[in-house]
């Protein structure tokens, strides 16, 4: 927008020539400033890598934005295929990574922000990394996971062609205050999308399914249609249970997990929208993943999906749906789903000292409850490592662990090694969940805890590690240093770069 205005001659008359040369100078200065911002961002990136700050650093984006706040808008406007945004509380990384993987099978490499770097700074950093010094992007499209609270800003800057919202949980209330307030801000942002844009929403989440109300964009819904996937949610972790039209308590005809399912309003008759991107049948196969029969706007396909749990089926639907809407053929999507390797601790297994380690990121009650259900299928005398951190990225408030059904896990545990910055809280939770005191060990040091859990497990046995966000990062790094996870790190780097 501002570009166009800068190019348009604005004044006539005697001063015209002088003004025009002034305009040219301005344009030149603007271009120089852009180059400067890109260069500074790239330099900061190099420096933060040298300093070992790693992928999570906000510095390059901060530097570039400081010099030119408009930079992401400028770079985005030069992407021939535009941007796709993925937002929501859970599953945005998995969804974005799956989608990037589908494109990679077509030889396309979208500009894609790294794990966790989902604020404007992180998006800017990804753009700066993938463009030349004049701000011309190397990729044809942008693919960004976006923090829920950042979505309004990202929509305004990037003018996305597709926006996907996975779900909304209140686990990040300590950052955003009210869930309703957050939702209405998102709704407002999505109202600015134009008619050509597509909005892909989770029909199973009563709050998310209303986010397109004020939008002119074409709204498509995804959801789970298999009637056998009746879980036990709406107990402790239920979040959005009210009808948006009239405020009455929603009635759930089927609950997949947490507050996800088929619902209707008994008062005004408002109903869950019918999904065009649907999981018609889901066979859960424990930690190994699931077999899913999908329908993409009527085109059916069946896939072996390597990620565990029903919550990951939503991520499958969001990514496959987005891919289909962006023009990728179902055959390619099927191939992509089956060949997908998790890039980042969402249910991976490693081999360590003659044992297997199953590492899964669990960052909030819903995630944890789903993981517990998955892990429980694996046996009744399991060795467990539970890592609870309270760093900013994890959420500083750990009270959510009392909303998790650890009672279910306690009955399936042989022993628990509790670790992380809030190891004692985790241990205490397991004690009150009914696990005997003798079966609980507190070891704050993550490395020692990991080795202890592995050594106490039997030869060939699997240790189940349920870890919060930063603890997962730390364990990955540790395994990588031990030479265990090297190959997968390599993958991550290639995909992310």
């Amino acid at each position, binding site marked *: 927008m501002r570009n166009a205005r800068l190019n348009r001659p604005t004044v006539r008359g005697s001063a015209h020539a002088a003004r025009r040369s002034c305009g040219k100078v301005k344009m030149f200065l603007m271009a120089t400033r852009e180059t400067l911002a890109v260069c500074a961002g790239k330099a900061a990136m190099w420096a933060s890598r040298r300093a070992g700050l790693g992928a999570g650093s906000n510095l390059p984006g901060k530097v570039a934005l400081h010099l030119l706040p408009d930079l992401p808008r400028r770079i985005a406007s030069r992407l021939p295929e535009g941007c796709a945004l993925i937002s929501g509380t859970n599953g945005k990384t998995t969804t974005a990574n799956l989608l990037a993987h589908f494109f990679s099978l077509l030889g396309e490499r979208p500009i894609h922000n790294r794990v966790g770097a989902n604020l404007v700074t992180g998006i800017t950093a990804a753009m700066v990394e993938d463009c030349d010094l004049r701000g011309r992007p190397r990729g044809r499209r942008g693919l960004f996971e976006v923090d829920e609270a950042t979505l309004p800003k990202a929509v305004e800057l990037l003018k996305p062609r597709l926006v996907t919202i996975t779900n909304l949980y*209140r686990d990040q*209330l*300590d950052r955003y*205050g*009210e*869930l*309703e307030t957050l939702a209405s801000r998102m709704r407002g942002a999505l109202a600015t999308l134009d008619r050509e844009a597509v909005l892909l929403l989770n029909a199973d989440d009563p709050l998310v399914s209303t986010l397109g109300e004020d939008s002119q964009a074409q709204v498509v819904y995804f959801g789970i249609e298999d009637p056998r996937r009746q879980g036990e949610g709406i107990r*402790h972790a*239920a979040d959005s249970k*009210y009808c948006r039209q009239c405020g009455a308590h929603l009635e759930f005809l089927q609950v997949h997990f947490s507050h996800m399912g088929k619902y209707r309003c008994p008062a005004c008759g408002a109903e869950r929208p019918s999904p065009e991107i649907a999981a018609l049948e889901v066979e859960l196969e424990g930690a190994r993943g699931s077999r899913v029969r999908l329908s993409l706007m009527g085109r059916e396909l069946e896939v072996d999906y390597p990620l565990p749990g029903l919550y990951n089926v939503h991520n499958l639907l969001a990514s496959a749906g987005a891919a289909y809407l962006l023009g990728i053929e179902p055959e390619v999507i099927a191939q992509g789903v089956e060949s997908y390797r998790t890039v980042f601790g969402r249910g991976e297994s490693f081999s360590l000292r003659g044992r297997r380690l199953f590492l899964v990121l669990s960052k909030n009650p819903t995630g944890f409850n789903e993981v517990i259900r998955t892990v429980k299928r694996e046996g009744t005398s399991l060795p467990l490592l539970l890592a609870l951190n*309270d*760093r*900013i*990225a994890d959420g*500083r*408030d*750990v*009270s*959510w*662990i*009392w*909303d998790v059904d650890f009672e279910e896990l306690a009955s399936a545990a042989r022993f628990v090694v509790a670790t992380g*910055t*809030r*190891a*004692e*809280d985790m*241990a*205490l*939770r397991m*004690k*009150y969940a009914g696990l005997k*005191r003798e079966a*609980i060990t*507190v070891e704050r040091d993550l490395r020692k805890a990991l080795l202890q859990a592995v050594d106490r497990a039997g030869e060939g046995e699997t240790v189940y590690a349920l870890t919060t966000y930063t603890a997962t990062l730390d364990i990955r790094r540790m395994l990588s240093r031990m030479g265990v996870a090297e190959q997968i790190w390599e993958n991550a780097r290639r995909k992310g770069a």
Partner: protein
Amino acid sequence: MKSDMTDKEEVRPTLRILHLYPDLMNIYGDRGNVIALVRRCQWRNIPVLVNELNLGDEVDLSSYDLFFIGGGQDREQTLVCEDLRQRGEELRRAVEQGAALLSVCGGYQLLGREFVTWKGEVLPGIALFDMRTEGGEKRFIGNVAVRSRLDGVSGTLVGFENHSGRTWLGPGAKPLGKVIWGYGNNGEDGTEGCVYKAALGTYLHGSLLPKNPHLADWLILHGLCHRYKVEGLDPLDDELEWKAHEAALKRTQAEGSLGARITTFLRG
């Protein structure tokens, strides 16, 4: 139940807990408080019973010994406020007769005289505590440590707070404790929570009771004494509870340090 109580020798003291609005007021792991109360009774072979009260339920409050209400978001608070007003007198009477009560965050706010939200909406409370609450712009978020004095015994309380309401105690109210680190009632006068007889209000969640076993036992004992002659509670092995308590105390101290502030700044 009346017939049970005529024959006191025969009857084992039983703790009857009423969890108020568990469906609506459960925002920050509040369930953990009930879990802690139940477990600590079970470990001592004290029969314990938990019932729930939801909007519109017909429940005789006088048959309970311990009440618990947790926190909720604005919308939930409004719904609960109306229902609670119908029961205000009954709940106040139960407390007057010695029943124990724990209210956390949003639930605590509804037990004062009134809660004026940031938008200017007035939620009248049941005036169990002599206090009023106003909504503020900035949220008070973080780890908290409090020095409290209950029945003449001094101790620390640890938890996490997350509230935008500022609570001001009236002349008839006694605070639960003094803030060592954190914001407490209003971030200004250094008070945290409120005590009236065996009724407590606080902004601390975390959950509160598992990490503060002395407070859990204080509530259990007062709940039991309300109906039975109970001298004291059998001691439990609380090594893990105190470890978690100490760790949380250290956490609040560390947050005040310069290094922690710099790290927060850089990460932000």
